[in-house]
Every structure is written in C-alpha cells, then in structure tokens.
C-alpha cells in the first residue's frame, strides 16, 4: 500500500492544479479565435493576413494572438453549431463570471492529456519496483527522480525529501506542458495565464502553510515583522506585498515566455505561405530549437523558484526569524 502513496500524491496534486485552473482560466478567455472570424481551420494561413481581411470582433478587449492549429480547434470548426449551441445553453444558467468558452475546454483537455500520460507512466513504472530492477521504465523514472533530487537538494538541503513531491512534480508537469506545443496538432496549456496562475496559487498557499507549520504562528508573524522589531510599521506591509507579488510574477513569467514562444512559431509558420516558390521552407524550425531550450529553462525556473520560496520560509539557525 505504501508504495502507491507517492503516485497517488502525484495524481492528487495534478488534479488539484487542473481544478484550480478551471476557475482561474476565465479571465483571459477572449482569444484569437473570436477575433479571426471563421477561418479556424486555416489558422496558420490566416495568421499573417490579420490586417488584410478578417479584423477583430467588435467588443473584444485583449489582443488577438496567433497560434498554430491544434486538434481541438478542428473539432470546434467541424461541429461549430452544435458546440456553440451547447455552450450557450450551459452559459445561460451560469453567472457571467463563470461563463465557459471553448478555449477553456481546449486548455483543460491538453492539461488532462499531459496528466494522463504522466500519471499512467508513473503508475506503471512504480508497479515494477524491485531490489534489482529489470524494467527500463522503472530505471528511467528512478533516474529522473534522482536527478531532480540532486538538483533541488542544492536549495532545500536536508529537507529535500519532504518537499520534492511538490517541486519535482511541478518541474515534470510544466516541462511536459511546455514541450506539448511542439507536437503537431497540440498546444501548450501553459500559454494561458489561468493554468500558470493555478499552479502559482497552489505554491503560494503551500509556502504559507509550510511557514506556519515549520515556524509556528509566532515565528510566522516574527518573519513579517523583520529584524529590528520597531520597524514593523514599514516592514509588515512590505513583507505582505512581497508575498502577494510572488505568485503573480511566477505565473506571468511562465505565461509570457510560453505565449511569446508559441506566437513566434505561429507567425513564422504563417510566413511560409507568403513566400512564393516551389519548396516551402520550414522557416520556424530554428525557433523550435530555441523553444526546446526555453521550455526547459522556464520549467526549471518555476520549480526552482518554488523551492527557493519554500527554503526561505524554513527556520534557519543563524538569525532568529
């Protein structure tokens, strides 16, 4: 039984992240799809000609952004009337803040695909645990885990074992989501702010909870007051602001990087059809190599910063707070 606990923790964390993502996702649901009219299926072809024919719909705020086609887009394009009617019927019963749009379903679908792949891989690998393992899948997973452990132990020190389920899961999950956009007909769910905001909010609450558990309530408040205690009128608001800004910058960094990278790919893929010639050159190929590096670095930074935020909250011996 105990050996399934880690796997179950992983699945539970991922499901929590998705559930939080569903509610956080609405804020940026005005998208290019509404802007570019009915040219869904030819999103790439329509991309560079955004200024030519298909302008933006009237009341949409938020910029249009170009993106490579994904298969959920095709599903919507082929069953447009049925899906739109269904969404309108669902939205009629919901308050305006919770309205569902097709983009939300799209992103959640890609999140769920990543989660299903990761969890089934982890579960099947952890079934074959032996002292002298023969299965390559298990060895692969163990290598990943040991690598992550060594990496995060630079920051977390002797507490790595306690906190690696969260930060390691974040790293693997974000890396897979970032790289998912490079597969044809797939999309990076991290290029939406809601998904990243969900993860950042989870990290935020986990960090606060860790601080309270490890330092006690008094130590937690002493951390907010700061070193010379009579400076507290200045330090307390500053510390609270600092804590609140952390999740915002954490999620915006990932979102902006992945969105920028995907937009760059889509714009250059759209340029391919503009250049006349017999052969279509893969103009966006060098940017895909760049995207490989950036996806890895962003996943690393998100999980590393989460680990650093946790490590900052742990009790340290040299000074009192």
């Amino acid at each position, binding site marked *: 039984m105990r050996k399934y606990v880690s796997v179950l923790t992983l699945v539970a964390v991922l499901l929590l992240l998705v559930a939080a993502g569903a509610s956080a996702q609405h804020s940026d649901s005005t998208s290019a799809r509404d*802007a570019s009219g009915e040219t869904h299926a030819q999103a790439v072809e329509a991309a560079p000609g955004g*200024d030519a024919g298909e*302008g*933006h719909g009237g009341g*949409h*705020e*938020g*910029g*249009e*952004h170009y993106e490579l086609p994904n298969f959920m887009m095709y599903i919507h394009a082929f069953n447009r009337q049925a899906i739109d009617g269904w969404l309108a019927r669902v939205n009629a019963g919901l308050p305006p803040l919770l309205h569902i749009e097709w983009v939300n379903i799209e992103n959640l679908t890609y999140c769920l695909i990543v989660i299903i792949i990761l969890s089934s891989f982890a579960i099947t690998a952890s079934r074959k645990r032996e002292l002298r393992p023969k299965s390559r899948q298990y060895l692969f997973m163990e290598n990943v885990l040991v690598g992550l452990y060594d990496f995060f132990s*630079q920051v977390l020190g002797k507490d790595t074992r306690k906190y690696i389920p969260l930060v390691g899961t974040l790293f693997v999950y974000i890396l897979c989501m970032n790289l998912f956009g490079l597969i044809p007909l797939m999309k990076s769910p991290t290029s939406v702010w809601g998904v990243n905001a969900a993860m950042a909010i989870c990290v935020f609450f986990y960090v606060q909870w860790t601080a309270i558990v490890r330092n006690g309530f008094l130590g937690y408040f002493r951390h907010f007051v700061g070193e010379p205690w009579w400076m507290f009128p200045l330090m307390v608001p500053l510390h609270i602001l600092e804590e609140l800004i952390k999740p915002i*910058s954490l999620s*915006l*960094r990932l*979102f*902006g*990087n992945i*969105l*920028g990278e995907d*937009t760059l790919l889509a714009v250059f893929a759209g340029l391919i059809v503009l250049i006349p010639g017999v052969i279509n050159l893969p103009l966006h190929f060098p940017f895909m190599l760049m995207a490989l590096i950036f996806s890895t*670095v*962003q996943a*690393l*930074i998100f999980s*590393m*910063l989460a680990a*650093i935020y946790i490590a900052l909250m742990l009790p340290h011996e040299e000074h009192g707070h």
Partner: protein
Amino acid sequence: MEYQAALGLALPLGLGLAALGCGIGIGMAVNGAMSAMARQPEALGRIQIAMIIGAAFIEALTIYALVIAFVLSGKIA
C-alpha cells in the same frame, strides 16, 4: 495623434526599450558568471544555476512589456 497611431508607435518602441535594458542586464550577469566559472571550474554547476535564475528575473521584465504589448495590440487596428 490618434491613439491607434500612438499605440502602434509606442508598443514596439516600449518593447524594444525593455529588451535593451534587459539585454544590458543579462550581459552583465553572464559576464560575471562566465569569469567566475573560468576562475573556479569546480563550482560550475552552482554558478550556472544561479546565473540562470538571475537571468530569468531580468528577462521577466521584458516579458511584462511583452504581455502589455499583447494586451494592447488588439486596440491598434
């Protein structure tokens, strides 16, 4: 000047200015990290990670400008 024209001028210019500052910042960070790595090759891993995290903090400033550009670019046309 109409606000669309102002936006069309200001968005790329602002993004370029943000990229300029962050370019200088990342250049200085990588410069320091490179010389540190050359002096102490045995501490290469730790320096590299610290450099990447610092570079991410600097790069985030450009990303904020990029997000603003994405948000406002719908209002140009």
